[in-house]
């Protein structure tokens, strides 16, 4: 197939996958018109759309691999056959029938994984032009054109996009299926909402089943849109759309006060992050003049290069020169090779700005408060939005936008990540709500990803993103089925010993816990590694941070914190598991009523648990790692040596695999440390909650202060309240006072003055003018009356007067004419 044909084929498939949920959403949102509130048709439509989307993205991935010769290079398939006795009927890779049914496609994915094979070829990254192009970019529609800038809806397809597409659609499909069961009690005309008290009773409202699936479809559309986006502006558009969907989904139970405030909080905090994002965008636009990431085809790149091509040459090097006034200028290669220089700090500012957006979206250090409250939404939402996809968008953006970040920005990313992971972990330890614990664990894992991206572990970070998506959504769904089983009871102290009641949920939960803690038995025994996906990704991260520490001694924290975090993670995860599933039930009532959730809920659990185990199979030699490495930005593999002005070294791949102590590589050393810490944490949790030998209450009493501090979630809410809300009230109070005193005073003053003037004017008017007029009237009246005697009414006297008058006049005339 020719490159163009492949490009069109891939873009077609991905566009279908992308737009199907939108169509679903359009249908489902009007379900109120064409279907009743009791039918599940809306759900089936949603599942169908996202399922078809998964199939399309899967076929796109396979056809991409086949045609770009990627499979040929990395013949995982044959390798798999040799080693693993397991084997189902392996349909040949390219023979996938686009089968809408979830079950069969599950096997196909598994098979495709094995085809990748563990070992990864010598990673020559030199792109010789003669080879088949692997990255495709294009434009659907041009929104606007401002001079040289084109705002367009376009796509940028490379291995990362395809992997993300498959991951998102797969997880969304499972969650949609799960949601059908979970949201089944909304299928009534009269849904009693126990959490909302209206008068003396509860709120009665019609069920909103179809609306939930509409929002889910909209969210899937916007997430896929974000992933496929070809330029930063489009990313921003879907960034906002995703934010809206999270707002809608968190606030699904709108009547609940807590739900609506949580939705607002999430949206507002995201907006704060987006504020930074916008600033970054603006800087990019003014300085670079374009939003597109990069233009794979050579001739188009010459005409209007993407952001990356302008900043970095083919080897990923950024040229910095010292301008005459001493400031560092970055040289950009514009269209037709024109050169333009922008100040270095501007680029740093742009990077920081874009990273702010990611902090807001992925609930990193300063803006993490909204995620725990976001648990108010239904559990499938938490699973899909607030664990796997949306929060991962921040990390994906950092990954996608990696070339633009200068070393200084990377350091900040790293530190933010470190702080976040440690803080979230500590809070998770004391959290009692099952979903709160998972929320904090999500935050800390995101911290891990940011940390790994910050320290240069691009592939490690994104691998961890994928794996975390799988096992975190798994755990959320398990907690969902637990809540569902315990009739919306989320407090762990009320649960206990549910293993017997809900075996499948318990064991899938256990798989998730083991995956996240990264427990494994290092080494490969009889061709199989006893290690979950979490182990591989977490080890890579810790190794990269160790290598980073190796290169930059002052950043010791970047290694210590992830290590400690790993331990704490293990502790709170196993605490969670033991708390809910092991031991005697703490609340007999709930225990009695607990029941295993129906098939429609536990099947996705099983599927997700399978992926939680095998998605990062074979670690760095695995297919997933290979795919991710394929779209690693140029120059990442061999790291950056410390350049001006920050003097920070970024480790490459080889640094990670250098010999450190003896023959053990950095990677192995880090792995051993992480494993030790994790095992310690697990054992400690077992002691506290599993066997209940130690009483947490005692510890709580001993470290009451610390405990209180942690329960208060490091008092960030109070901090923000104090920093922002209070000042606003105070200032508004001042303004109100100003308004009342100054402006009203002024107005009252003028009106009072007006009143005075008018009273004076009225008095003047009455006395002077009226007086005058009356005087004149009076005078005329008096004169008139005085002449009255003349009008006697007697005819004869009148004649006499006339005669006299005549005489007088004539005399006068006579005299005058003398």
């Amino acid at each position, binding site marked *: 197939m020719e490159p163009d044909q492949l490009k069109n084929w891939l873009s077609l498939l991905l566009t279908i996958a992308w737009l199907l949920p939108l169509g679903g959403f359009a249908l489902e949102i009007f379900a109120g018109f064409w279907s009743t509130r009791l039918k599940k048709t809306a759900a089936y439509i949603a599942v169908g759309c996202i399922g078809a989307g998964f199939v399309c993205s899967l076929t796109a991935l396979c056809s991409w691999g086949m045609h770009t010769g990627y499979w040929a290079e990395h013949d995982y398939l044959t390798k798999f056959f040799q080693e693993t006795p397991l084997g189902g009927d392996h349909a040949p890779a390219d023979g996938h029938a686009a089968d809408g049914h979830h079950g069969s496609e599950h096997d196909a994915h598994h098979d495709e994984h094995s085809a990748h094979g563990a070992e990864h070829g010598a990673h020559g990254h030199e792109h010789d032009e003669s080879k088949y192009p692997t990255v495709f970019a294009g434009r659907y529609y041009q929104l606007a054109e401002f001079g040289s800038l084109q705002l367009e809806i376009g796509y940028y397809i490379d291995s990362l996009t395809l992997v993300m597409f498959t991951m998102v659609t797969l997880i969304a499909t499972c969650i949609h299926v799960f949601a059908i069961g979970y949201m089944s009690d909304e299928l009534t005309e009269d849904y009693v909402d126990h959490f909302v008290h209206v008068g003396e009773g509860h709120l009665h409202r019609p069920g909103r089943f179809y609306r939930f699936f509409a929002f889910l479809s909209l969210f899937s559309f916007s997430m896929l849109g974000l992933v496929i986006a070809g330029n930063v502006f489009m990313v921003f558009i879907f960034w906002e759309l995703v934010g809206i969907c999270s707002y809608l989904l968190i606030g699904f139970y709108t009547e609940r006060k807590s739900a609506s405030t949580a939705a607002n909080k999430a949206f507002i905090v995201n907006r704060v992050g987006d504020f930074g994002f916008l600033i970054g965008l603006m800087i990019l636009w003014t300085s670079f003049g374009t939003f597109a990431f990069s233009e794979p085809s050579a001739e188009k790149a010459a005409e209007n290069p993407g952001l990356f091509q302008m900043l970095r040459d083919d080897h990923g090097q950024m040229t910095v020169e010292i301008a005459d006034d001493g400031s560092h200028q970055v040289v950009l290669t514009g269209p037709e090779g024109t050169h333009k220089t922008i100040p270095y700090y501007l680029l740093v500012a742009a990077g920081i700005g874009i990273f702010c957006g990611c902090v807001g979206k992925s609930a990193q250090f300063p803006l993490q408060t909204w995620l725990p409250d976001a648990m108010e939404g239904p559990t499938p939402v938490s699973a899909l939005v607030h664990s796997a996809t949306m929060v991962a968008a921040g990390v994906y953006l950092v990954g996608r936008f990696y070339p633009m970040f200068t070393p200084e920005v990377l350091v900040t990313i790293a530190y933010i990540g470190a702080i976040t992971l440690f803080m979230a972990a500590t809070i998770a330890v004391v959290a009692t709500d099952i979903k709160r614990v998972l929320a904090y664990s999500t935050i800390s894992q995101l911290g891990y990803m940011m940390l790994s991206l910050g320290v240069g572990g691009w592939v490690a970070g994104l691998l961890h993103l994928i794996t975390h998506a799988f096992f975190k959504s798994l755990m959320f769904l398990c907690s969902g089925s637990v809540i569902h089983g315990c009739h919306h009871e989320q407090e762990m102290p009320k649960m206990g010993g549910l293993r017997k009641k809900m075996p499948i949920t318990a064991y899938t939960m256990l798989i998730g816990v083991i995956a996240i803690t990264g427990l494994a038995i290092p080494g490969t025994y009889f061709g199989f590694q006893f290690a979950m996906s979490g182990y591989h990704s977490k080890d890579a991260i810790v190794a990269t941070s160790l290598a980073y520490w190796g290169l930059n001694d002052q950043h010791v924290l970047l290694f210590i914190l992830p290590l400690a975090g790993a331990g704490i993670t293990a502790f709170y995860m196993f605490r969670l598991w033991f708390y809910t599933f092991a031991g005697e039930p703490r609340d007999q009532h709930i225990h009695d009523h607990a029941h295993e959730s129906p098939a429609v809920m536990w099947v996705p659990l099983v599927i997700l648990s399978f992926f939680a185990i095998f998605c990062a199979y074979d670690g760095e030699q695995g297919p997933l790692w290979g795919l991710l490495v394929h779209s690693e930005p140029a120059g990442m593999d061999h790291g950056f040596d410390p350049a001006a002005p920050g003097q920070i070294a970024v480790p490459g791949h080889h640094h990670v695999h250098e010999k450190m102590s003896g023959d053990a590589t950095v990677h192995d050393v880090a792995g051993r440390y992480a494993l030790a810490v994790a095992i310690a944490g697990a054992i400690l949790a077992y002691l506290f909650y599993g066997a209940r030998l130690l009483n947490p209450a005692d510890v709580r009493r001993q470290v009451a202060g610390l405990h209180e501090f942690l329960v208060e979630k490091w008092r960030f809410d109070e901090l923000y309240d104090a920093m922002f809300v209070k000042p606003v009230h105070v200032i508004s109070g001042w303004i109100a006072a100003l308004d009342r005193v100054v402006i009203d005073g002024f107005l009252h003053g003028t009106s009072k003055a007006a009143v005075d003037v008018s009273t004076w004017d009225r008095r003047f008017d009455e006395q002077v003018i009226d007086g005058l007029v009356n005087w004149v009237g009076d005078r005329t009246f008096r004169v008139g009356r005085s*002449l*009255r*005697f*003349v*009008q*006697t*009414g*007697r*005819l*004869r*006297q009148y*004649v*006499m007067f*006339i*005669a006299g008058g005549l005489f007088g006049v004539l005399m006068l005339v006579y005299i005058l004419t003398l």
Partner: protein
Amino acid sequence: MPELNFCILIGAVLFVSGVVCMATKRNAIGVLMGVELVLNAANLNFVAFARYTALGLDGQILSLFVIVLAAAEAAVALAIALNFYNNHLTIDVDRADDLHG
């Protein structure tokens, strides 16, 4: 032309006697007679000027009109006087002073 002066003299006498008659007579008809005298004085002057000055024929025509209109005026005045007499049973002008100030 002495005759013109004589005519004017006679006219003046007529006019003045008319005015006096109007001024002194308490009988409404007396007043009317005074009016007639005044009108006649005017007529006399008209004709005299027609004869002795350049006024010519116009004077005579005007006197014709005066005569005719005097007749009309007398008719109306008499009607009023009779009405007054019928209503108030008196012809004394001084009794008709309702329009005093």
